């Protein structure tokens, strides 16, 4: 077993008096994909934002490749460059083309020449099925295409781990498949990933581990078959049966 890429230890986070994370522990090994499941408001997005240092945690610590990245002396910019985050609402830059979206980080952060960055960006877009759309603005792309551009953008810095925040929740049902295919593709390549998702069948298929988040705590964690098939905690049972009733599994 290789050393963990990400380690979250006893992390708490409150917004005012609202405690969103109440002591989360999570370990993600190299090449591993962990699916974060749980109801809306259970803290999935907040946990991912805390790992990418977009939110400051209150207590606990987070390690990336053994380094405590939540230490106040660590430069957040340096950490974020080693991670990739994909947002639920894509958050593409609307004033830039698909290609410019993908290469902006590369060019400004790693100081790569324009030609080289664009060459690489083109290849990345092609890899996610976006050949010929390089010069389209986000407005002219479908939701599924936008999210694939966003995945290419997050991936362009060759991150140590990719954080995916409900990347299909804003999509029309018929567009979900193409985005999941992109994530599957990254999994095959061995990308280390934390995937917050409502797509249980996808979690079952792609994730090595499933973690069930409830009310700011991880109540259950283990292989998908066990957590999704025979959950132990009443909260997880209730959550899954509700999804079952809604026809979402």
């Amino acid at each position, binding site marked *: 077993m290789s050393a963990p890429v990400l380690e979250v230890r006893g992390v708490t986070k409150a917004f005012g008096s609202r405690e969103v994370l109440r002591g989360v522990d999570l370990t993600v090994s190299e090449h591993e994909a962990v699916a974060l499941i749980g109801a809306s408001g259970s803290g999935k997005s907040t946990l991912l934002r805390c790992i990418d240092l977009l939110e400051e945690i209150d207590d606990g610590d987070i390690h990336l490749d053994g380094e405590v990245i939540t230490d106040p002396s660590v430069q957040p*910019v340096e950490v974020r460059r080693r*991670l990739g985050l994909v947002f639920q*609402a894509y*958050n593409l830059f609307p004033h830039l083309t698909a290609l410019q979206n993908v290469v902006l*980080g590369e060019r*400004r*952060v790693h100081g790569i020449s324009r030609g080289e960055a664009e060459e690489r960006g083109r290849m990345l877009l092609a890899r996610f099925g976006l050949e010929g759309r390089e010069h389209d603005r986000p407005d002219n792309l479908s939701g599924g295409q936008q999210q694939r551009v966003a995945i290419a953008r997050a991936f362009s810095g060759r991150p140590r781990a990719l954080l995916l925040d409900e990347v299909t929740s804003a999509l029309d049902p018929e567009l979900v498949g193409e985005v999941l295919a992109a994530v599957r593709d990254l999994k095959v390549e061995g990308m280390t990933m934390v995937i917050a998702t409502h797509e249980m069948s996808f979690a079952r298929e792609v994730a090595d581990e499933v973690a069930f988040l409830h009310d700011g705590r991880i109540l259950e964690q283990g292989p998908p078959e066990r957590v999704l098939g025979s959950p132990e905690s009443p909260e997880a049972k209730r959550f899954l049966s509700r999804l079952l009733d809604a026809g979402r599994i």
Partner: protein
Amino acid sequence: MTETAVISDRRLAREAAKRRQARRGQAVAAVSTIIVLGGLAAVVLTSPGWPAVRETFFSWSVFKESFPEVLSGFWLDVKIFMIVEVVVLAVALAIALVRTSRGPALFPLRMLGTVYVDLFRGVPTILLVYLVGFGVPALQLTGLPTDPVVLGGIALALSYSAYVAEVYKAGIRSVHRGQRDAALAVGLTEGQAMRHVILPQAVRRVAPPLLNDFVALQKDVALISILGPQEAFRIAQIVQGENFNYTPLIAAALLYLAVTVPLARVVDRMGGGGGEVR
């Protein structure tokens, strides 16, 4: 070919009805325009004082005589406008960036920015022109400008940069928070996020109100006349005094319109497309 060429009777009837409606709309617009404009003209032209007003405000001979002089003064207005506008755009952007900054180290600057905006936006522009134009030279400090054109320009820049800073600030605030998150997530610094992601979107969005302030500034350049420089309004006043005829003021007004009306059309066009809010 014959199949696609068939147009149904219902469609033909609907199109004919639409054409009738359009024709009726145009007729109504034409008639109401004639009534309104004709009415206004009738009221003015039949007023007891009209012959006198026509002579003192719309004298063709005075207009022909004074126009070249007023026009030569107007170039000074245009020059002042262009220089002050560039200064305003730069200073206002700096103030907006300071006011929207977050770091604790910038707290004193933030406070200063707030005071600046409160002060120079709160004082009437004409008062600023007086205060700067007459107050600064009265200090008798060496190194400070004494040219009334420069002092007047400074007063206008102070006033308008306070307004424009607020326009920029509104634009920066209107860019969704997710844009900053995304910029940071791809590894940009706060400064790079502002420069490459937030500002380009903000400026695009506030271009119409910015142009609106351009138009206002272009007119307010006339306020500098109270300090003495021979710009269009000042010259028009002088010529008016010599002839006891107000026509030179009309000439000046036409010159201002010649610049502000095209600018206004640009504003209209920009308001139409782009600048979408998400």
